């Protein structure tokens, strides 16, 4: 449901963007739950957790 953000603009606070880098999350691929679709810290954290969860489920896929 993430509307395609034209040309590299990310609608997220600098702190959320740093968190995404820290957790190795591609913030462009995160669904934003904030006003207008802004990506929040919680969204980034959820994306990281989700990936970890799916990482556990499909552990073979992760092996690259």
């Amino acid at each position: 449901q993430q509307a395609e953000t034209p040309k590299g603009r990310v609608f997220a606070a600098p702190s959320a963007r740093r968190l995404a880098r820290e957790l190795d999350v591609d913030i462009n691929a995160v669904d934003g739950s904030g006003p207008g679709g802004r990506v929040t810290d919680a969204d980034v954290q959820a994306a990281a957790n989700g990936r970890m969860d799916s990482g556990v489920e499909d552990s073979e896929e992760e092996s690259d």
Partner: protein
Amino acid sequence: MVVGDISTGTDVLVIGGGPGGYVAAIRAAQRGLDTTLVEKDNYGGVCLNRGCIPSKALITGADLAHEAGNAEEMGIHADPAVDMAQMVDWKDGIVDQLTGGVEKLCKANGVNLVKGTATFKDENSVRVAHGGEGQGSESIEFDSCIVATGSRTIQIPNFDYADDPVLGSKEALDMDSIPERLVVVGAGYIGMELSTVYAKLGTEVTVVEMLDDVLPAYEDDISKVVKRRAKDLGIEFNFGEGASEWRESSDGGITVVTETEDGEESTYPADKVLVAVGRSPVTDTLGLDAIGLEPNEGGFLETDDYARTDIDHIYAVGDVAGEPMLAHKAFKEGIVAAEVIAGEPAALDYQAVPAAVFTDPEIATVGMTKDEAEEAGFTPVVGQMPFNASGRAMTTGHTEGFCRIVADEDSGFILGGQIVGPEASELIAELALAVEMGATLEDVAATIHTHPTLAEVIQEAAENAEDQAIHTLNR
């Protein structure tokens, strides 16, 4: 730590002590890295010594003198006399304090300071020539290097800055008297800022510009406001002409000769001529050949999102790393380079670099214009508020200009803003935060703004974009 002629080693070597370099060095040292900063000249670079700070000091001074002399309507009757040498002394005092401060901050943070000119020996060492006779040189080995050598004024044929009547921006900031007549070559931001200074001090200023308008980097309705006011200040503009030469004239002054594309000549009498046609990066004196690093067409060192050049452990920041050539972009790149070297998850992921022009009135912009937003694929909505509807602006006697906000129609996200008017350089800070945070029009409109302030124009422009303005009629 570093002793002459003996090769020493450092974790991080920073070349150049301007805004990009000193900030990078301080941050690297703060991160516990052994850091060495090599600077051949004064600390603070162009910005502190002959750029941002001295120009803003003279702008403030000229502005105060001019304001006070033109405030009869307010009931203030004054005829200020300006002692230019004294104004320049005052400015020099500020510069000294700031450059001394940079040196102190470097030392307090544990940065090793080395005076001299660095050139690459190989990918992991430089040679530092201490300059001056018998000063010798030394080698410094490094694990990582940050190149922050900045930029220098471009010179045009027949106008040699060594000749007395020819001024670069540096010389124009160091005059000991106010010239009667000044020809300014170039109507970019430096040319326009300095033209305004001298026009306000009483100089007859004539601007010659190759292009067909002032401040081509800005939208027409913005540069128009500045041009109109510049004309009111007595500045004359001649577009479509390039300066070709100057000669001494019989009245003791000079004649500046210009040429159109078609070869048509004009002449302008003057006492001094200021050449302000741009700046180019300093890469030629670095010995880049020794490491096989090649500048791009513009002469800049290309870098990635981590401020790294093509050589992984060699970084470039500030003017030498590309446009926009602004001190605060250099700060940011310096910080990021140092943090990346320290192994932190830093990156150049900012959304926007604000920019200000300290003309009268000031211009300040951040993020996208309406056209840029369209090009990027947004459906932009625009809100505007003129300063002549601002109570605070009226009480300062400065009501020219407007504030514009550009947002994405669907989401309301603020994409950018353009302000031309009083204190634009300060007001843009709120919009920069809005752009960086992903704020919406509603966020800015709902934030209570102090009355009476100029900053209310930002709120009102956001409301206007939403058809919710109170103090102007909506679109």
